[in-house]
Protein backbone atom coordinates (compact mmCIF):
# COMPACT_ATOMS: atom_id res chain seq x y z
CA UNK A 1 0.00 0.00 0.00
CA UNK A 2 2.63 2.43 1.15
CA UNK A 3 4.89 1.73 -1.84
CA UNK A 4 2.13 2.26 -4.41
CA UNK A 5 1.33 5.57 -2.79
CA UNK A 6 4.89 6.83 -3.15
CA UNK A 7 5.07 5.48 -6.70
CA UNK A 8 1.90 7.33 -7.63
CA UNK A 9 3.24 10.41 -5.99
CA UNK A 10 6.52 10.14 -7.89
CA UNK A 11 4.68 9.64 -11.15
CA UNK A 12 2.43 12.62 -10.58
CA UNK A 13 5.49 14.65 -9.65
CA UNK A 14 6.95 13.88 -13.04
CA UNK A 15 3.79 14.84 -14.88
CA UNK A 16 2.90 18.03 -13.01
CA UNK A 17 5.66 20.21 -14.50
CA UNK A 18 4.53 19.25 -17.98
CA UNK A 19 0.96 20.17 -17.18
CA UNK A 20 2.17 23.64 -16.27
CA UNK A 21 4.27 23.83 -19.43
CA UNK A 22 1.74 22.31 -21.83
CA UNK A 23 -0.31 25.41 -22.73
CA UNK A 24 2.75 27.37 -23.80
CA UNK A 25 4.63 24.50 -25.42
CA UNK A 26 1.60 23.53 -27.54
CA UNK A 27 1.03 27.12 -28.70
CA UNK A 28 4.78 27.57 -29.22
CA UNK A 29 5.05 24.42 -31.34
CA UNK A 30 2.01 25.13 -33.51
CA UNK A 31 2.45 28.86 -33.98
CA UNK A 32 6.19 29.34 -33.86
CA UNK A 33 8.32 26.24 -34.20
CA UNK A 34 6.46 24.36 -36.91
CA UNK A 35 5.82 27.49 -39.03
CA UNK A 36 9.50 28.47 -38.88
CA UNK A 37 10.64 25.05 -40.13
CA UNK A 38 7.84 25.05 -42.71
CA UNK A 39 8.77 28.58 -43.75
CA UNK A 40 12.33 27.59 -44.50
CA UNK A 41 11.15 24.48 -46.35
CA UNK A 42 8.68 26.31 -48.59
CA UNK A 43 11.40 28.73 -49.67
CA UNK A 44 12.70 25.69 -51.59
CA UNK A 45 9.33 25.01 -53.24
CA UNK A 46 7.07 26.64 -55.79
CA UNK A 47 4.21 26.98 -53.31
CA UNK A 48 1.09 29.07 -53.97
CA UNK A 49 -0.41 28.95 -50.44
CA UNK A 50 -3.05 26.38 -51.42
CA UNK A 51 -1.75 23.45 -53.49
CA UNK A 52 0.82 20.95 -52.28
CA UNK A 53 4.28 22.52 -52.49
CA UNK A 54 6.73 20.86 -54.93
CA UNK A 55 10.38 20.84 -53.98
CA UNK A 56 12.44 22.80 -56.51
CA UNK A 57 15.74 23.07 -54.66
CA UNK A 58 17.53 26.37 -54.91
CA UNK A 59 15.51 27.66 -57.88
CA UNK A 60 13.80 30.46 -55.91
CA UNK A 61 17.14 31.67 -54.63
CA UNK A 62 18.73 31.42 -58.09
CA UNK A 63 15.85 33.48 -59.48
CA UNK A 64 16.24 36.08 -56.72
CA UNK A 65 20.00 36.43 -56.92
CA UNK A 66 21.05 35.60 -60.49
CA UNK A 67 18.17 35.99 -62.96
CA UNK A 68 18.52 39.68 -63.79
CA UNK A 69 15.53 39.54 -66.18
CA UNK A 70 13.21 38.45 -63.38
CA UNK A 71 10.89 40.91 -61.64
CA UNK A 72 11.69 39.14 -58.37
CA UNK A 73 15.41 39.83 -58.84
CA UNK A 74 14.47 43.48 -59.23
CA UNK A 75 12.12 43.37 -56.22
CA UNK A 76 14.73 41.83 -53.93
CA UNK A 77 17.30 44.40 -54.96
CA UNK A 78 14.95 47.37 -54.50
CA UNK A 79 13.31 46.00 -51.38
CA UNK A 80 16.54 45.08 -49.65
CA UNK A 81 18.26 48.31 -50.64
CA UNK A 82 15.41 50.43 -49.28
CA UNK A 83 15.13 48.36 -46.10
CA UNK A 84 18.86 48.82 -45.44
CA UNK A 85 18.60 52.53 -46.25
CA UNK A 86 15.78 52.91 -43.77
CA UNK A 87 17.75 51.11 -41.07
CA UNK A 88 20.85 53.24 -41.72
CA UNK A 89 18.85 56.49 -41.76
CA UNK A 90 16.65 55.79 -38.76
CA UNK A 91 18.69 53.80 -36.21
CA UNK A 92 21.22 56.57 -35.37
CA UNK A 93 18.36 58.96 -34.58
CA UNK A 94 16.48 56.28 -32.65
CA UNK A 95 19.59 55.94 -30.42
CA UNK A 96 20.86 59.54 -30.25
CA UNK A 97 17.57 61.41 -29.71
CA UNK A 98 16.42 59.29 -26.75
CA UNK A 99 19.94 59.42 -25.28
CA UNK A 100 19.90 63.22 -25.42
CA UNK A 101 16.43 63.35 -23.91
CA UNK A 102 17.38 60.90 -21.16
CA UNK A 103 20.54 62.91 -20.37
CA UNK A 104 18.49 66.10 -20.14
CA UNK A 105 15.88 64.40 -17.95
CA UNK A 106 18.66 63.00 -15.76
CA UNK A 107 19.57 66.52 -14.61
CA UNK A 108 16.16 66.44 -12.88
CA UNK A 109 14.82 69.70 -14.34
CA UNK A 110 11.35 71.03 -13.57
CA UNK A 111 8.43 69.04 -15.06
CA UNK A 112 10.72 66.04 -15.75
CA UNK A 113 7.88 63.56 -15.19
CA UNK A 114 5.60 65.37 -17.62
CA UNK A 115 8.31 65.55 -20.30
CA UNK A 116 8.95 61.85 -19.90
CA UNK A 117 5.26 61.06 -20.41
CA UNK A 118 5.06 63.24 -23.50
CA UNK A 119 7.98 61.48 -25.20
CA UNK A 120 6.84 58.01 -24.25
CA UNK A 121 3.19 58.41 -25.24
CA UNK A 122 3.42 57.99 -29.05
CA UNK A 123 4.90 54.51 -28.71
CA UNK A 124 1.50 53.40 -27.42
CA UNK A 125 -0.28 54.32 -30.63
CA UNK A 126 -0.99 52.06 -33.57
CA UNK A 127 1.15 52.81 -36.62
CA UNK A 128 -1.91 53.30 -38.81
CA UNK A 129 -3.16 56.05 -36.49
CA UNK A 130 0.34 57.57 -36.28
CA UNK A 131 0.64 57.72 -40.08
CA UNK A 132 -2.80 59.31 -40.48
CA UNK A 133 -1.78 62.05 -38.04
CA UNK A 134 1.56 62.69 -39.77
CA UNK A 135 0.08 62.63 -43.25
CA UNK A 136 -1.94 65.63 -42.19
CA UNK A 137 1.13 67.30 -40.65
CA UNK A 138 3.10 66.83 -43.88
CA UNK A 139 0.24 67.72 -46.23
CA UNK A 140 1.44 70.00 -49.03
CA UNK A 141 -1.40 72.54 -48.78
CA UNK A 142 -2.91 72.60 -45.33
CA UNK A 143 -0.23 70.82 -43.29
CA UNK A 144 1.39 72.81 -40.47
CA UNK A 145 4.96 71.95 -41.55
CA UNK A 146 4.72 73.69 -44.90
CA UNK A 147 2.70 76.55 -43.41
CA UNK A 148 5.24 77.17 -40.67
CA UNK A 149 8.24 76.85 -43.00
CA UNK A 150 6.33 78.79 -45.65
CA UNK A 151 7.12 76.31 -48.44
CA UNK A 152 5.14 73.91 -50.55
CA UNK A 153 7.41 70.91 -50.18
CA UNK A 154 5.75 67.66 -51.26
CA UNK A 155 7.04 65.76 -48.20
CA UNK A 156 5.79 62.30 -48.97
CA UNK A 157 6.02 62.49 -52.75
CA UNK A 158 9.59 63.50 -53.61
CA UNK A 159 13.06 62.58 -52.42
CA UNK A 160 14.89 63.19 -50.18
CA UNK A 161 11.83 64.48 -48.32
CA UNK A 162 10.08 61.12 -48.34
CA UNK A 163 12.98 59.57 -46.43
CA UNK A 164 13.07 62.51 -44.04
CA UNK A 165 9.35 62.13 -43.42
CA UNK A 166 9.69 58.39 -42.77
CA UNK A 167 12.53 58.91 -40.31
CA UNK A 168 10.74 61.76 -38.52
CA UNK A 169 7.58 59.68 -38.09
CA UNK A 170 9.57 56.67 -36.91
CA UNK A 171 11.60 58.66 -34.39
CA UNK A 172 8.45 60.36 -33.09
CA UNK A 173 6.72 57.02 -32.76
CA UNK A 174 9.43 54.83 -31.24
CA UNK A 175 11.92 56.68 -29.05
CA UNK A 176 9.98 56.32 -25.79
CA UNK A 177 11.18 52.82 -24.97
CA UNK A 178 14.88 53.53 -25.53
CA UNK A 179 14.60 56.77 -23.58
CA UNK A 180 13.27 54.99 -20.48
CA UNK A 181 16.01 52.37 -20.76
CA UNK A 182 18.70 55.08 -20.88
CA UNK A 183 17.06 56.99 -18.05
CA UNK A 184 17.19 54.06 -15.69
CA UNK A 185 20.77 53.33 -16.76
CA UNK A 186 21.87 56.93 -16.24
CA UNK A 187 20.26 57.17 -12.83
CA UNK A 188 22.36 54.20 -11.77
CA UNK A 189 25.71 55.90 -12.41
CA UNK A 190 27.37 56.97 -9.16
CA UNK A 191 27.71 60.75 -8.71
CA UNK A 192 31.25 60.22 -7.36
CA UNK A 193 32.63 59.69 -10.84
CA UNK A 194 31.37 63.06 -12.00
CA UNK A 195 32.59 64.81 -8.87
CA UNK A 196 36.05 63.30 -9.32
CA UNK A 197 36.02 64.43 -12.96
CA UNK A 198 34.97 67.93 -11.88
CA UNK A 199 37.99 68.13 -9.59
CA UNK A 200 40.19 67.10 -12.53
CA UNK A 201 38.59 69.91 -14.54
CA UNK A 202 36.84 67.72 -17.13
CA UNK A 203 34.41 69.38 -19.56
CA UNK A 204 30.82 68.23 -19.95
CA UNK A 205 31.68 66.62 -23.30
CA UNK A 206 34.63 64.77 -21.79
CA UNK A 207 32.45 63.57 -18.94
CA UNK A 208 29.84 62.32 -21.38
CA UNK A 209 32.32 60.31 -23.46
CA UNK A 210 34.62 59.15 -20.65
CA UNK A 211 32.11 58.43 -17.89
CA UNK A 212 28.52 58.34 -19.11
CA UNK A 213 28.87 56.35 -22.33
CA UNK A 214 31.11 53.59 -20.92
CA UNK A 215 28.82 53.23 -17.89
CA UNK A 216 25.72 52.57 -19.98
CA UNK A 217 27.43 50.56 -22.74
CA UNK A 218 25.40 47.45 -21.98
CA UNK A 219 22.09 49.25 -22.41
CA UNK A 220 23.31 50.95 -25.58
CA UNK A 221 24.28 47.61 -27.09
CA UNK A 222 20.88 46.23 -26.17
CA UNK A 223 18.98 49.15 -27.70
CA UNK A 224 21.13 49.25 -30.85
CA UNK A 225 20.47 45.57 -31.53
CA UNK A 226 16.77 45.69 -30.67
CA UNK A 227 16.17 48.91 -32.59
CA UNK A 228 17.97 47.59 -35.66
CA UNK A 229 15.90 44.40 -35.63
CA UNK A 230 12.72 46.43 -35.21
CA UNK A 231 13.59 48.77 -38.08
CA UNK A 232 14.45 45.89 -40.42
CA UNK A 233 10.80 44.92 -40.08
CA UNK A 234 9.74 48.32 -41.44
CA UNK A 235 6.35 48.04 -43.14
CA UNK A 236 3.53 50.27 -41.89
CA UNK A 237 5.24 53.64 -42.37
CA UNK A 238 6.15 53.35 -46.08
CA UNK A 239 2.97 51.40 -46.83
CA UNK A 240 0.68 54.16 -45.61
CA UNK A 241 2.82 57.32 -45.59
CA UNK A 242 4.70 57.21 -48.88
CA UNK A 243 2.94 54.21 -50.45
CA UNK A 244 6.36 52.93 -51.47
CA UNK A 245 6.94 56.00 -53.62
CA UNK A 246 8.14 58.11 -55.22
CA UNK A 247 9.14 55.63 -57.95
CA UNK A 248 9.47 52.69 -55.54
CA UNK A 249 12.24 54.54 -53.72
CA UNK A 250 10.73 53.69 -50.33
CA UNK A 251 9.25 50.30 -51.23
CA UNK A 252 10.72 47.93 -48.63
CA UNK A 253 11.22 44.16 -48.78
CA UNK A 254 8.38 43.34 -46.40
CA UNK A 255 5.98 45.11 -48.77
CA UNK A 256 7.12 42.85 -51.63
CA UNK A 257 6.90 39.76 -49.40
CA UNK A 258 3.36 40.66 -48.37
CA UNK A 259 2.36 41.48 -51.94
CA UNK A 260 3.79 38.28 -53.46
CA UNK A 261 2.31 35.97 -50.84
CA UNK A 262 -1.01 37.62 -50.05
CA UNK A 263 -1.58 40.34 -52.65
CA UNK A 264 -4.21 40.27 -55.34
CA UNK A 265 -3.59 37.74 -58.08
CA UNK A 266 -1.80 34.40 -57.97
CA UNK A 267 0.12 33.83 -54.74
CA UNK A 268 3.83 33.13 -55.13
CA UNK A 269 4.41 32.15 -51.53
CA UNK A 270 7.52 30.11 -52.42
CA UNK A 271 9.43 33.11 -53.76
CA UNK A 272 8.01 35.32 -50.99
CA UNK A 273 9.28 32.81 -48.41
CA UNK A 274 12.73 32.85 -49.98
CA UNK A 275 12.65 36.65 -49.70
CA UNK A 276 11.62 36.34 -46.05
CA UNK A 277 14.49 33.93 -45.39
CA UNK A 278 16.93 36.37 -47.02
CA UNK A 279 15.58 39.20 -44.85
CA UNK A 280 15.78 36.95 -41.79
CA UNK A 281 19.40 36.06 -42.52
CA UNK A 282 20.24 39.77 -42.96
CA UNK A 283 18.69 40.53 -39.57
CA UNK A 284 20.61 37.72 -37.85
CA UNK A 285 23.92 38.69 -39.50
CA UNK A 286 23.58 42.36 -38.64
CA UNK A 287 22.71 41.68 -35.01
CA UNK A 288 25.58 39.18 -34.74
CA UNK A 289 27.99 41.77 -36.16
CA UNK A 290 26.68 44.39 -33.74
CA UNK A 291 27.20 42.06 -30.81
CA UNK A 292 30.77 41.28 -31.90
CA UNK A 293 31.61 44.86 -32.72
CA UNK A 294 30.24 46.38 -29.53
CA UNK A 295 31.59 43.63 -27.29
CA UNK A 296 35.13 43.99 -28.65
CA UNK A 297 35.15 47.67 -27.68
CA UNK A 298 35.88 47.06 -24.02
Amino acid at each position, binding site marked *: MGTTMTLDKKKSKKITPWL*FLAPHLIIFAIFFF*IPVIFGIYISFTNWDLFNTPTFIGLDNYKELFFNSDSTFYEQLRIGLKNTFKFVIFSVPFCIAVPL*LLASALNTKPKL*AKIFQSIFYMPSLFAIS*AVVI*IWKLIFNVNYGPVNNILNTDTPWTGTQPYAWIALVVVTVWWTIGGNMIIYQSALSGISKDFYEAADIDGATAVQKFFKITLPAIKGQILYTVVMTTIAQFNIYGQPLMLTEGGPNNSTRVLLMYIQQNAFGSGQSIAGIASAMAVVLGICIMCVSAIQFKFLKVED
Partner: protein
Amino acid sequence: MKKISLSQIISFLFLIVMALIWLVPLIYGVLTSFKSEMELMTAGFKILPIEWVLTNYQELLVNNTSTPLVKWFFNSLFISVSHTLLVLVVVSLSAFAYSRLEFKGKKKLFSFLLATMMFPSVVNLIPLYKIVDILGWVNTPLAMIIPGAAGVFNIFLVKQFMDNIPKDFDEAAQIDGANDLTIFFKIILPLIKPVLLVVALFAFTSSWNDFLWPSIVFNDIEKMPITSGLQLLQGMYQSQPTLLMAGALIAIIPTFILYLFAQKYFLQSMSLSAGVKG
Protein backbone atom coordinates in the same frame (compact mmCIF):
# COMPACT_ATOMS: atom_id res chain seq x y z
CA MET B 1 15.47 76.84 -1.63
CA LYS B 2 16.95 74.32 -3.99
CA LYS B 3 19.70 75.57 -6.24
CA ILE B 4 19.04 75.37 -9.97
CA SER B 5 22.13 74.53 -11.96
CA LEU B 6 23.08 75.70 -15.43
CA SER B 7 22.76 72.18 -16.82
CA GLN B 8 19.20 72.05 -15.48
CA ILE B 9 18.32 75.27 -17.27
CA ILE B 10 19.82 74.13 -20.57
CA SER B 11 18.12 70.74 -20.21
CA PHE B 12 14.80 72.38 -19.45
CA LEU B 13 14.95 74.59 -22.55
CA PHE B 14 15.94 71.65 -24.74
CA LEU B 15 13.12 69.53 -23.32
CA ILE B 16 10.56 72.30 -23.85
CA VAL B 17 11.46 72.53 -27.53
CA MET B 18 11.39 68.75 -27.98
CA ALA B 19 8.13 68.38 -26.05
CA LEU B 20 6.51 70.92 -28.35
CA ILE B 21 7.67 68.96 -31.38
CA TRP B 22 6.26 65.81 -29.80
CA LEU B 23 2.93 67.36 -28.81
CA VAL B 24 2.12 69.52 -31.81
CA PRO B 25 1.24 66.68 -34.22
CA LEU B 26 -1.12 65.16 -31.70
CA ILE B 27 -2.75 68.43 -30.68
CA TYR B 28 -3.08 69.57 -34.28
CA GLY B 29 -4.66 66.19 -35.08
CA VAL B 30 -7.19 66.56 -32.27
CA LEU B 31 -8.08 70.10 -33.35
CA THR B 32 -8.40 69.07 -37.00
CA SER B 33 -10.85 66.33 -36.09
CA PHE B 34 -13.19 69.10 -34.88
CA LYS B 35 -12.94 71.11 -38.09
CA SER B 36 -15.27 70.75 -41.03
CA GLU B 37 -13.89 69.46 -44.30
CA MET B 38 -14.73 72.77 -45.96
CA GLU B 39 -12.93 74.82 -43.37
CA LEU B 40 -9.68 72.82 -43.59
CA MET B 41 -9.60 73.11 -47.38
CA THR B 42 -10.59 76.73 -47.81
CA ALA B 43 -9.94 78.74 -44.65
CA GLY B 44 -6.15 78.80 -45.01
CA PHE B 45 -3.84 77.65 -42.25
CA LYS B 46 -5.47 78.04 -38.85
CA ILE B 47 -4.59 76.12 -35.75
CA LEU B 48 -7.91 76.33 -33.93
CA PRO B 49 -11.15 75.47 -35.68
CA ILE B 50 -13.17 78.58 -36.61
CA GLU B 51 -16.27 76.58 -35.90
CA TRP B 52 -16.06 73.45 -33.74
CA VAL B 53 -18.04 70.62 -35.32
CA LEU B 54 -18.76 67.00 -34.39
CA THR B 55 -19.69 65.96 -37.90
CA ASN B 56 -16.54 63.86 -38.40
CA TYR B 57 -17.25 61.79 -35.32
CA GLN B 58 -20.94 61.56 -36.15
CA GLU B 59 -20.18 60.42 -39.66
CA LEU B 60 -17.83 57.66 -38.40
CA LEU B 61 -19.72 56.52 -35.33
CA VAL B 62 -23.34 56.87 -36.38
CA ASN B 63 -24.03 57.39 -40.06
CA ASN B 64 -21.42 55.31 -41.78
CA THR B 65 -22.15 51.74 -42.78
CA SER B 66 -19.30 51.04 -45.22
CA THR B 67 -16.69 51.62 -42.52
CA PRO B 68 -18.04 50.20 -39.26
CA LEU B 69 -15.66 51.94 -36.88
CA VAL B 70 -17.65 51.07 -33.77
CA LYS B 71 -17.58 47.42 -34.73
CA TRP B 72 -13.81 47.55 -35.40
CA PHE B 73 -13.32 49.16 -32.03
CA PHE B 74 -15.14 46.38 -30.19
CA ASN B 75 -13.46 43.70 -32.32
CA SER B 76 -10.13 45.09 -31.17
CA LEU B 77 -11.27 45.31 -27.58
CA PHE B 78 -12.41 41.69 -27.57
CA ILE B 79 -9.21 40.52 -29.24
CA SER B 80 -6.88 42.48 -26.97
CA VAL B 81 -8.63 41.56 -23.72
CA SER B 82 -8.82 37.86 -24.62
CA HIS B 83 -5.21 37.82 -25.79
CA THR B 84 -4.07 39.47 -22.57
CA LEU B 85 -5.91 36.95 -20.39
CA LEU B 86 -4.51 34.03 -22.37
CA VAL B 87 -0.97 35.39 -22.15
CA LEU B 88 -1.28 35.85 -18.39
CA VAL B 89 -2.40 32.26 -17.85
CA VAL B 90 0.13 30.70 -20.22
CA VAL B 91 3.05 32.80 -19.06
CA SER B 92 2.51 32.43 -15.32
CA LEU B 93 2.06 28.65 -15.55
CA SER B 94 5.24 28.20 -17.63
CA ALA B 95 7.32 30.59 -15.58
CA PHE B 96 6.28 28.70 -12.45
CA ALA B 97 7.48 25.41 -13.91
CA TYR B 98 10.84 26.84 -15.03
CA SER B 99 11.38 28.67 -11.75
CA ARG B 100 9.99 26.27 -9.14
CA LEU B 101 9.57 22.72 -10.41
CA GLU B 102 12.15 20.07 -11.19
CA PHE B 103 11.94 18.01 -14.34
CA LYS B 104 14.28 16.35 -16.77
CA GLY B 105 15.76 18.61 -19.41
CA LYS B 106 14.54 21.83 -17.76
CA LYS B 107 17.70 23.83 -18.38
CA LYS B 108 18.03 22.62 -21.97
CA LEU B 109 14.42 23.33 -22.82
CA PHE B 110 14.60 26.81 -21.33
CA SER B 111 17.84 27.68 -23.14
CA PHE B 112 16.33 26.39 -26.37
CA LEU B 113 13.30 28.66 -25.93
CA LEU B 114 15.54 31.64 -25.21
CA ALA B 115 17.59 30.90 -28.31
CA THR B 116 14.46 30.97 -30.48
CA MET B 117 14.00 34.61 -29.47
CA MET B 118 16.94 35.44 -31.73
CA PHE B 119 15.09 34.03 -34.71
CA PRO B 120 13.59 36.68 -37.02
CA SER B 121 9.82 36.32 -36.99
CA VAL B 122 9.46 37.40 -40.62
CA VAL B 123 10.29 33.83 -41.68
CA ASN B 124 7.19 32.37 -40.07
CA LEU B 125 4.74 34.93 -41.44
CA ILE B 126 3.61 32.99 -44.51
CA PRO B 127 3.40 29.49 -42.98
CA LEU B 128 1.65 30.93 -39.93
CA TYR B 129 -1.08 32.16 -42.25
CA LYS B 130 -1.40 28.64 -43.67
CA ILE B 131 -1.72 27.09 -40.22
CA VAL B 132 -4.33 29.63 -39.18
CA ASP B 133 -6.14 28.91 -42.45
CA ILE B 134 -6.05 25.12 -41.84
CA LEU B 135 -7.50 25.69 -38.37
CA GLY B 136 -10.30 27.74 -39.94
CA TRP B 137 -9.33 30.86 -38.03
CA VAL B 138 -9.03 33.29 -40.95
CA ASN B 139 -11.36 36.23 -40.31
CA THR B 140 -11.87 35.15 -36.70
CA PRO B 141 -10.52 36.76 -33.52
CA LEU B 142 -8.69 33.51 -32.71
CA ALA B 143 -6.14 34.34 -35.41
CA MET B 144 -4.99 37.24 -33.27
CA ILE B 145 -5.68 35.94 -29.78
CA ILE B 146 -3.71 32.70 -29.78
CA PRO B 147 -0.57 32.75 -32.00
CA GLY B 148 0.87 35.75 -30.16
CA ALA B 149 0.92 33.71 -26.94
CA ALA B 150 3.80 31.63 -28.38
CA GLY B 151 6.29 34.33 -27.34
CA VAL B 152 9.06 33.50 -24.90
CA PHE B 153 10.14 36.89 -23.61
CA ASN B 154 7.34 37.30 -21.06
CA ILE B 155 8.04 33.86 -19.61
CA PHE B 156 11.65 34.90 -19.17
CA LEU B 157 10.61 38.15 -17.50
CA VAL B 158 8.20 36.48 -15.06
CA LYS B 159 10.63 33.64 -14.31
CA GLN B 160 13.35 36.14 -13.38
CA PHE B 161 10.91 37.84 -11.05
CA MET B 162 9.83 34.53 -9.50
CA ASP B 163 13.43 33.44 -8.96
CA ASN B 164 13.77 36.30 -6.50
CA ILE B 165 10.96 35.00 -4.31
CA PRO B 166 12.55 32.95 -1.48
CA LYS B 167 12.10 29.19 -1.81
CA ASP B 168 11.34 29.01 1.92
CA PHE B 169 7.76 30.03 1.21
CA ASP B 170 7.10 27.00 -0.96
CA GLU B 171 8.95 24.66 1.38
CA ALA B 172 6.94 25.78 4.37
CA ALA B 173 3.76 25.24 2.40
CA GLN B 174 4.96 21.83 1.24
CA ILE B 175 5.50 20.76 4.83
CA ASP B 176 1.93 21.82 5.52
CA GLY B 177 0.90 19.42 2.76
CA ALA B 178 0.29 21.87 -0.09
CA ASN B 179 0.75 20.54 -3.63
CA ASP B 180 2.25 22.42 -6.58
CA LEU B 181 -1.08 23.80 -7.72
CA THR B 182 -1.87 25.19 -4.29
CA ILE B 183 1.59 26.72 -4.02
CA PHE B 184 1.14 28.31 -7.43
CA PHE B 185 -2.26 29.81 -6.71
CA LYS B 186 -1.96 30.63 -3.02
CA ILE B 187 1.66 31.71 -2.71
CA ILE B 188 3.34 32.56 -5.99
CA LEU B 189 0.51 34.14 -7.94
CA PRO B 190 -0.25 36.87 -5.38
CA LEU B 191 3.45 37.72 -5.15
CA ILE B 192 4.03 38.10 -8.89
CA LYS B 193 1.12 40.51 -9.44
CA PRO B 194 3.39 43.49 -10.24
CA VAL B 195 5.23 41.72 -13.06
CA LEU B 196 1.98 40.22 -14.36
CA LEU B 197 0.54 43.71 -14.59
CA VAL B 198 3.52 44.71 -16.71
CA VAL B 199 3.02 41.67 -18.96
CA ALA B 200 -0.69 42.46 -19.25
CA LEU B 201 -0.08 46.07 -20.29
CA PHE B 202 2.37 45.01 -22.96
CA ALA B 203 0.17 42.20 -24.21
CA PHE B 204 -2.82 44.51 -24.48
CA THR B 205 -1.06 47.35 -26.26
CA SER B 206 0.89 45.15 -28.66
CA SER B 207 -2.29 43.28 -29.57
CA TRP B 208 -4.29 46.50 -29.97
CA ASN B 209 -1.59 48.07 -32.15
CA ASP B 210 -0.63 45.05 -34.28
CA PHE B 211 -0.71 45.99 -37.93
CA LEU B 212 0.86 43.61 -40.48
CA TRP B 213 -0.58 40.35 -39.16
CA PRO B 214 -4.26 41.43 -38.96
CA SER B 215 -3.99 42.92 -42.44
CA ILE B 216 -3.14 39.39 -43.64
CA VAL B 217 -5.67 37.33 -41.70
CA PHE B 218 -8.67 39.64 -42.01
CA ASN B 219 -10.33 40.55 -45.29
CA ASP B 220 -13.91 40.61 -44.03
CA ILE B 221 -14.55 44.27 -43.23
CA GLU B 222 -16.96 43.49 -40.40
CA LYS B 223 -14.49 41.25 -38.57
CA MET B 224 -11.42 43.49 -38.71
CA PRO B 225 -9.65 45.06 -35.76
CA ILE B 226 -9.35 48.83 -35.76
CA THR B 227 -5.74 49.06 -37.02
CA SER B 228 -6.68 47.31 -40.27
CA GLY B 229 -9.86 49.35 -40.34
CA LEU B 230 -7.85 52.56 -40.29
CA GLN B 231 -5.80 51.41 -43.25
CA LEU B 232 -9.01 50.77 -45.14
CA LEU B 233 -10.37 54.12 -44.01
CA GLN B 234 -7.25 55.85 -45.30
CA GLY B 235 -7.71 54.18 -48.69
CA MET B 236 -11.37 55.18 -48.93
CA TYR B 237 -11.23 58.72 -47.55
CA GLN B 238 -7.86 59.98 -48.82
CA SER B 239 -9.45 63.34 -49.52
CA GLN B 240 -11.19 63.71 -46.16
CA PRO B 241 -8.42 64.31 -43.63
CA THR B 242 -10.75 65.61 -40.90
CA LEU B 243 -12.68 62.34 -40.96
CA LEU B 244 -9.48 60.27 -40.99
CA MET B 245 -8.21 62.21 -38.03
CA ALA B 246 -11.33 61.47 -35.99
CA GLY B 247 -10.88 57.78 -36.82
CA ALA B 248 -7.20 57.78 -35.83
CA LEU B 249 -7.98 59.47 -32.52
CA ILE B 250 -10.73 57.01 -31.65
CA ALA B 251 -8.24 54.20 -32.30
CA ILE B 252 -5.67 55.57 -29.86
CA ILE B 253 -8.10 56.31 -27.01
CA PRO B 254 -7.89 52.92 -25.22
CA THR B 255 -4.09 52.74 -25.05
CA PHE B 256 -4.00 56.43 -24.16
CA ILE B 257 -6.38 55.92 -21.23
CA LEU B 258 -4.50 52.81 -20.16
CA TYR B 259 -1.32 54.85 -20.12
CA LEU B 260 -2.88 57.59 -18.00
CA PHE B 261 -3.82 55.06 -15.35
CA ALA B 262 -0.80 52.77 -15.50
CA GLN B 263 2.00 55.14 -16.49
CA LYS B 264 4.24 54.06 -13.63
CA TYR B 265 4.05 50.42 -14.67
CA PHE B 266 4.66 51.12 -18.35
CA LEU B 267 7.83 53.00 -17.53
CA GLN B 268 8.86 50.36 -15.02
CA SER B 269 8.34 47.62 -17.57
CA MET B 270 10.60 49.25 -20.15
CA SER B 271 13.51 49.51 -17.74
CA LEU B 272 12.73 46.00 -16.49
CA SER B 273 13.00 44.58 -20.00
CA ALA B 274 16.41 46.17 -20.51
CA GLY B 275 17.64 45.39 -17.03
CA VAL B 276 17.07 41.75 -17.82
CA LYS B 277 19.28 42.01 -20.88
CA GLY B 278 21.72 44.83 -20.20
